[in-house]
């Protein structure tokens, strides 16, 4: 099993580059994608998730274009009073920084994994999960603020267009669900790294696959930040 994987990787490195390589990879009597199957499957899952998130963002665009009621001033809705000053959108800016920090620690965890540094990998993955948990916590704070103090509901809100509520809860809710699932996923894999499971297996590719998922969550946030919060 492990031997065949190595052979596939070696065969691919000697294969053709560029477009002739695409034809050779897809037409040859071999694996089309010279990566571990788990990685290929994770990429395909992320591709399908891309379609789901784009559907949400596209429907948000559609209702925002078509509503005749003014859209709430997002910059002001997500402002916070810090030290007596009202700073616009600061909550979302901090959440963005938290997620980017976690993405960096995840990248380092993958790197340390391939260097076989078990303790470093475990620590970095747990730090990543902790940042993810902080992000979800801040989101819970944001939701509480909007639901309890501003009276925003999925079917309407006192700030303006009722579509704002439905889009907000749907998009950030689905993203928050992904982050929460990622925190669990990271914790499980971190525990396995610590137990030496991947040393025995002989490969740390699972850490990289977990990293793909986590970076995707950050990637989706880049688009949500641009289209929902800045637009």
């Amino acid at each position, binding site marked *: 099993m492990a031997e065949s994987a190595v052979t596939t990787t070696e065969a691919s490195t000697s294969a053709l580059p560029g477009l002739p390589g695409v034809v050779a990879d897809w037409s040859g009597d071999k694996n*089309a994608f010279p990566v571990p199957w788990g990685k290929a499957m994770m990429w395909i899952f992320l591709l399908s998730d891309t379609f789901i998130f784009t*559907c949400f963002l596209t429907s948000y*665009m559609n209702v925002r274009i078509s509503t005749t009621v003014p859209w709430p001033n997002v910059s002001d809705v997500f402002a916070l009073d810090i030290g007596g000053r009202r700073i616009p959108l600061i909550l979302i800016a901090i959440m963005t920084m938290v997620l980017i920090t976690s*993405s960096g620690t995840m990248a380092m965890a993958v790197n340390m994994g*391939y260097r076989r540094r078990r303790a470093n990998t475990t620590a970095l993955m747990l730090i990543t999960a902790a940042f993810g948990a902080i992000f979800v916590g801040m989101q819970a704070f944001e939701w509480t603020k909007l639901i309890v103090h501003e009276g925003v509901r999925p079917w309407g809100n006192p700030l303006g267009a009722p579509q704002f509520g439905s889009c907000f809860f749907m998009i950030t809710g689905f993203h928050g669900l992904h982050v929460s699932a990622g925190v669990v996923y990271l914790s499980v894999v971190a525990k396995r790294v610590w137990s030496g499971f991947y040393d025995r297996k002989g490969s740390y590719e699972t850490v990289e696959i977990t990293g793909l998922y986590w970076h995707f969550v*950050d*990637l989706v946030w880049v688009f949500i930040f641009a289209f929902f919060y*800045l637009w």
Partner: protein
Amino acid sequence: MAAAVGQEIAVAHEAAAAHAAAAGHEKAEGQQHPVAIYLWIWVLLFVFSTFSYLIDYFHLHGYLRWSLIIIFMLLKASFIVAVFMHMAWERLALKFAILVPPLCLLVLIGLMAIEGDYTFLTRLASFLH
């Protein structure tokens, strides 16, 4: 800056290839790259995010605002996919399989934008009467 990062990627690629060659028949490890490249991308992501936030903070408006938002968004997304998700080092067959299908979504976005305009105009016409 972007050119420097491109060079970093190329250098990293060569280093990885050299590493794989040096390893010979030892266990080949997948995506191993110098730590420096991750740190650079990390810094860039912070810089781009800060710029994105400042666009809102300084109340930029109109085409300047929209183009800057889109540019920083695409830069961040590309760096995450290319370096953090290692897409830059994958074979072209996998790149095509993952990156081409989302282009279909541009059709959906275009259609829904037209549809949104149409609905808006219809609503205006019907509410005004």
